[in-house]
């Protein structure tokens, strides 16, 4: 694979400074629905103003540029080691240029590495696929939203949640209630049903790459997404937890196979600043996009 250093740097810059068009449009529609003059409308107006300013000045939408989470889909024969090194170099350079905040902290000493590189940092998911091109998807996920993510083990007696989609519905409502405004509402919910505990989070975060307006191809999940979207908003937690009509921007659900003994529901809460970007390298040509889903 050719030298992608500059392109990968552009991918990081784009993800940090330019909110995807579908997310911005959804926020704008939400702003129009809130009562004029309310704290909720005020928060959304500020958010939209900030999004425009960040894009115009090429500065981070949010100062918590989060964990850079890379999903790399490679054609056969591409060296994942070489790609990893190039991504790491781009992340360090993006940090030097203030597109990213230095966020990698040694858990034992408390020292910040200063360049966003460290053990298990950033996060990589590699997959070889049958397509003839390389695709690099990047999600920047901040700490406030990561702290309100939740994983439930069904059955859950206190929530009267059994091992079925009604049980999934109940625990997701609980997760959104528990989060209140702390994950920077209005959030995008990426949900995984099944999997092991680790795989559940990986799959839940994959859902965050889906365009906000898409429809789940699995009818039961599409129906649950729609119902949860309505019901989460009925909680009226609102932007920033100020109260209001917009508590979530979208609900996206995926399902994995599971062990007979295990039934996990994983809720990856993403803040309103759902910062994702995609880079495709085909026949030596690089292109970027921020709307199409995985």
């Amino acid at each position, binding site marked *: 694979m050719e030298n992608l250093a500059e392109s990968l740097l552009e991918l990081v810059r784009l993800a940090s400074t330019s909110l995807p068009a579908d997310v911005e449009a959804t926020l704008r529609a939400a702003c129009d629905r809130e009562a004029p003059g309310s704290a909720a409308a005020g928060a959304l107006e500020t958010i939209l103003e900030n999004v425009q300013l960040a894009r115009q000045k090429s500065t981070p939408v949010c100062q918590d540029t989060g964990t850079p989470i890379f999903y790399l889909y490679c054609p056969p024969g591409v060296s994942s080691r070489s790609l990893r090194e190039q991504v790491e170099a781009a992340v360090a350079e993006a940090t030097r240029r203030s597109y990213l905040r230095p966020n990698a902290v040694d858990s034992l000493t408390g020292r910040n590495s200063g360049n966003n590189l460290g053990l298990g940092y950033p996060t990589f998911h590699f997959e070889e696929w049958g397509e003839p091109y390389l695709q690099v998807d990047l999600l920047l996920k901040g700490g406030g939203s990561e702290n309100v993510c939740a994983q439930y083990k069904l059955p859950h007696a206190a929530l009267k949640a059994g091992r079925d989609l009604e049980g999934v519905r109940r625990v997701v409502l609980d997760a959104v209630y528990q989060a209140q405004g702390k994950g920077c509402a209005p959030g995008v919910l990426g949900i995984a049903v099944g999997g092991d505990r680790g795989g559940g989070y990986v799959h839940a975060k994959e859902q965050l790459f889906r365009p906000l307006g898409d429809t789940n191809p699995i009818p039961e999940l599409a129906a649950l997404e729609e119902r949860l979207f309505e019901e989460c908003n*009925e909680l009226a937690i609102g932007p920033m937890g100020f109260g209001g009509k917009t508590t979530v921007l979208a609900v996206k659900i995926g399902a994995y196979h599971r062990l007979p003994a295990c039934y996990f529901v994983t809720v990856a809460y993403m803040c309103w600043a759902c910062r994702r970007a995609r880079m495709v390298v085909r026949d030596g040509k690089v292109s970027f996009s921020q709307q199409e889903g995985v």
Partner: protein
Amino acid sequence: MAAYDLSIPISEQEIRALHVGDTVRLDGVIVTGRDAAHKYMIENFVRAAETPVSEQALYQELLRLLKGGVIYHCGPVVRQRKDGSWEFVAAGPTTSIREEPYQADVITHFGMRGVIGKGGMGASTLQACQDYGAAYFHAVGGAASLIADSVKQVVSVYKKEEFGVPEAFWVIRVEGFPVVVTMDSHGQSIHDQVEAASRVKLHELMES
């Protein structure tokens, strides 16, 4: 809901005039401080039998800056100019609730009049706001480029090497920093109100 402009240092009288829902634009010098900073202040100043000699200078500086002052829960993205001075590039609030174990003691020890953050805080901070005369100012989470625009000068920075850029004490001069009062000095909290209302709705949805 009323709108106010407040200059730091803020008086108790000015704080007592504020109620939840009011919007405020803040002017003056504030200090950023988050997880490492709060743990440090508690261990070295607030609950320490004696402040270590090595930390005395910073202690005196913080006492001066925070009297009637405001601490901002924020870990900024910064840029260093060629002349060595610093610039805030992105500077929205971080989640405040992590400082709940410390905040009430820090408010009373330093004589602070406010905390800026996001997500709200708990019962002990609300009590300290009521007893001492302080307010919780909510900034819009993620509005980082916009808020950075209201930071007119980085006056100084402490503990940058030890704590790292996000966790350091950044002393900044702000103009027109936009916030909403979500916890006031009269025992009111928008966060408590919204949580209580959403709990009722949650129970309804669970019964349906």
